[in-house]
């Protein structure tokens, strides 16, 4: 037996493992896998009842002729969201996290293994309804889309600065209910921009299909090309 294989005795062992780095390494690995298959992925984040599923249904309706789309729906339990999105005619994978209040890189990696990534070019991932914990768990997407709705009250942006900072695009949803809720959409948008200068902010009423085109443009998904891969480019 060599010294290297000898058991240690009462000895300090250096480990030096940064858990946050491991979390982002898992996410980076997912991103590499998606890139290798030419898939663009969007992480949709919002509180319970903010309208994530309705917004995703709207995005799918507007984009399914231009992109080959798959959706991953994350929830603690049930496949209500998956069933609703499947009505739009795209494949949906429901992840039931059990008790976990967020998706993480590992859960998403296992989901990616179950999808035929070569047959899709746009993947929309509905995270678990929560704006606190998902901020600490990147899952490896190209865009993090943050959804705030006026029915959650006027302080959502300032109350969730960590999440707002990480988002690339923010949506103020249920704008049709702003008057009833006495929420000033412009003020809420300004709050988002003050917490995260430079973020794109879009206003929608997803239930009535309003603002979806603006959102598609903000996500950089608009364009004349009929395919996501750009093969129709001159």
């Amino acid at each position, binding site marked *: 037996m060599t010294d290297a294989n000898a058991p240690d005795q*009462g*000895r300090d*062992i250096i480990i*030096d*493992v*940064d*858990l946050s780095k491991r979390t982002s390494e898992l996410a980076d690995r997912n991103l590499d896998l998606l890139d290798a298959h030419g898939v663009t992925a969007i992480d949709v984040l919002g509180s319970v009842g903010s309208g994530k599923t309705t917004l995703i249904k709207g995005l799918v309706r507007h984009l399914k002729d231009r992109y080959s789309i798959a959706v991953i729906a994350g929830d603690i339990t049930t496949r209500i969201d998956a069933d609703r999105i499947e009505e739009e005619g795209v494949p949906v994978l429901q992840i039931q996290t059990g008790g976990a209040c967020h998706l993480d890189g590992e859960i998403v990696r296992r989901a990616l293994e179950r999808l035929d990534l070569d047959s899709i070019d746009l993947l929309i991932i509905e995270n678990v309804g929560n704006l606190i914990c998902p901020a600490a768990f990147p899952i490896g997407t190209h865009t993090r889309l943050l959804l705030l709705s006026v029915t959650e009250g006027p302080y959502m942006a300032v*109350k969730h*600065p960590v999440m707002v900072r990480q988002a690339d695009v923010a949506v103020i949803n249920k704008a049709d209910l702003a008057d009833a809720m006495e929420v000033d959409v412009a003020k809420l948008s300004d709050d988002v921009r003050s917490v995260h200068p430079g973020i794109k902010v879009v206003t929608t009423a997803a239930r009535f299909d309003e603002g979806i085109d603006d959102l598609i443009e903000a996500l950089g998904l608009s364009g004349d090309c009929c395919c996501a891969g750009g093969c129709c480019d001159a």
Partner: protein
Amino acid sequence: MHDVTAAQRIASTVLHAAHERQARRVEQISIALGAMTMIDPDQLTFWLEQVLRGTVAEGAEIEIEQLPLIVRCTRCDSESEVAVPDDPIYHLMPFAPACPACGCEEIEIVGGDACVVRSMRITEASDDE
């Protein structure tokens, strides 16, 4: 990051390293915990003790060093330590760090957002194992 998730990941990191070293017992675990992880050291210790039950690290002394939040301001380029309020209701009122020098929120977090498993102290495997 979550206290339970952090505890599970620390445990699996420690137990993996202990297994590699053929440790009979893990006596002590040393952790560095950044203020911006918003993890309460007492809660983390509690959960670690629970998830380590029945393992070679059961009963290990858990030493947590808390690291301050360090921000770099993208506007005035100063780097400073920011006090994170010790507030048990942080889940309801999350903390938004700002630059202490100029007050703006256009900052980068350059330290204090990590949870690092630094080291452990182990005892050797016995000859009969």
